[in-house]
């Protein structure tokens, strides 16, 4: 029998009153919804873990649309692109040519970005730099025991794999940790109340919460039907 070890960090959604209950699980409907880690980035985590389990080879430019290497492997920025595509309700729309550096810039402008490794959560993008330039990225899949586990495409000759860095030393050798990025989940279209000006009440509520506590992210809950929940 599982039990909660900490309050649900959110997000709290106005049109889903149960989300304000810090000790509910999957809207109290575990047979209908899954919410494995109490957060809303499970699509990205699942996509990253799937890539790590499939012996996907490294390919320079792999995963980039239109690139000759598309479909035969991934590089680090291509992996992040694929993972973000698996979660269609996010705010990071990557198109055209891209690199880990341009992806980090997108998170800064269209998502949430923190230079504090302690804010890393499953589903986040994580970035490292070399000589001041962002050169590597991965997708956080777990945070526990003082470690941040991430899936990435390491280098030529290595398959997509799961690595970790310690919270107290998040660098990868000479590549310096620079930040974690988190998409803002798009607001669901079903049953969203709007104000007379057309703004979503959910968005208004999130804006209010962000204004009250700018260091915390608030997003719309994104649940997945028919998933068997797993409790500790």
């Amino acid at each position, binding site marked *: 029998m599982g039990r909660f070890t900490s309050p649900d960090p959110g997000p709290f959604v106005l049109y889903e009153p149960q989300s304000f209950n810090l000790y509910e699980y999957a809207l109290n409907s575990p047979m209908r919804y899954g919410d494995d880690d109490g957060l809303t980035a499970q699509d990205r985590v699942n996509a990253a873990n799937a890539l790590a389990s499939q012996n996907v080879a490294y390919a320079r430019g792999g995963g980039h649309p239109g690139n000759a290497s598309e479909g035969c492997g991934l590089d680090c920025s291509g992996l992040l692109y694929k993972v973000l595509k698996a979660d269609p309700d996010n705010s990071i729309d990557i198109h055209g040519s891209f690199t880990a550096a341009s992806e980090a810039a997108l998170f800064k402008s269209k998502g949430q970005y923190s230079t504090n490794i302690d804010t890393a959560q499953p589903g986040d993008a994580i970035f490292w730099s*070399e000589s001041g330039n962002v050169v590597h990225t991965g997708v956080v899949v777990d945070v526990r025991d003082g470690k941040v586990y991430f899936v990435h495409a390491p*280098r030529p000759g290595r398959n997509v794999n799961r690595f970790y860095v310690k919270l107290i030393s998040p660098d990868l*050798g000479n590549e310096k940790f620079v930040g974690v990025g988190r998409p803002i989940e798009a607001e669901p279209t079903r049953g969203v109340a709007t104000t007379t000006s057309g703004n979503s009440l959910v968005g208004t509520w999130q804006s209010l919460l962000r204004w009250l506590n700018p260091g915390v992210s608030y997003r719309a809950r994104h649940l997945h039907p028919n998933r068997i929940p797993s409790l500790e």
Partner: protein
Amino acid sequence: MRTMMASGDQVEFRTETGKSAKLEGSFFVRGRTKPAVALLAALLLLCISLGCSQRPAGLSVAAGDDRMAADCLDAAKHALGTGAEIAKCGHLVGGLSVEAVAFIRLERFKDNADGLPVKRLVILRTADSHWYTALDVAKEVQNPSGYIGIDYIDDSEQYPGFRAAFLDRRADGKVGFVLQLTYLRQDGTSEGLPMWIAWNPDVGRFQEFTVNEEPGGFVQEVKNPPHIRSAK
């Protein structure tokens, strides 16, 4: 002018262009390099005239540091040809054996803070008064037991070489010689994460060393890696 400075058991050859840089042994050579180059060339010619290129390159460990440096260069040229340069020479991993790091430079790229651009690199090591190749960096990285740092061999990739850097501390903080290798793209920039290679005293081989994967530590060689993307 040639000066020598005692410094443990490492030697540095300083050239005017800063090219060949370090030769680790037990003294420093500063100032103009032409006399030093001429001396080494004379030694090489003497060696060739005596027919020593026909025998396995031997080593006289007790003959002194300058003899050690000459032996390293001799062994390097024996292994890689006349274009060989020495990066390090000395007791790099402890013990009585001598190690020489020799390389063929990729002339079209410049040295930078991330290391030397190399087309080929070998670590030569003495055993029973003879040199053997303890590590061979060509298209792939190999030691006498297998391939290092790869899951597969990608026959389609055409990287011109590696950027090689020499560290004096492993990622776990232990002091010791570490070779850092990063794949080079055709434009001279780096591709993917580096691999770190250190001496494993338990098995007596250079192996990949990682602290970012589970289990961490030294990684066993791959005996027969699969080939992918091979030309039909």
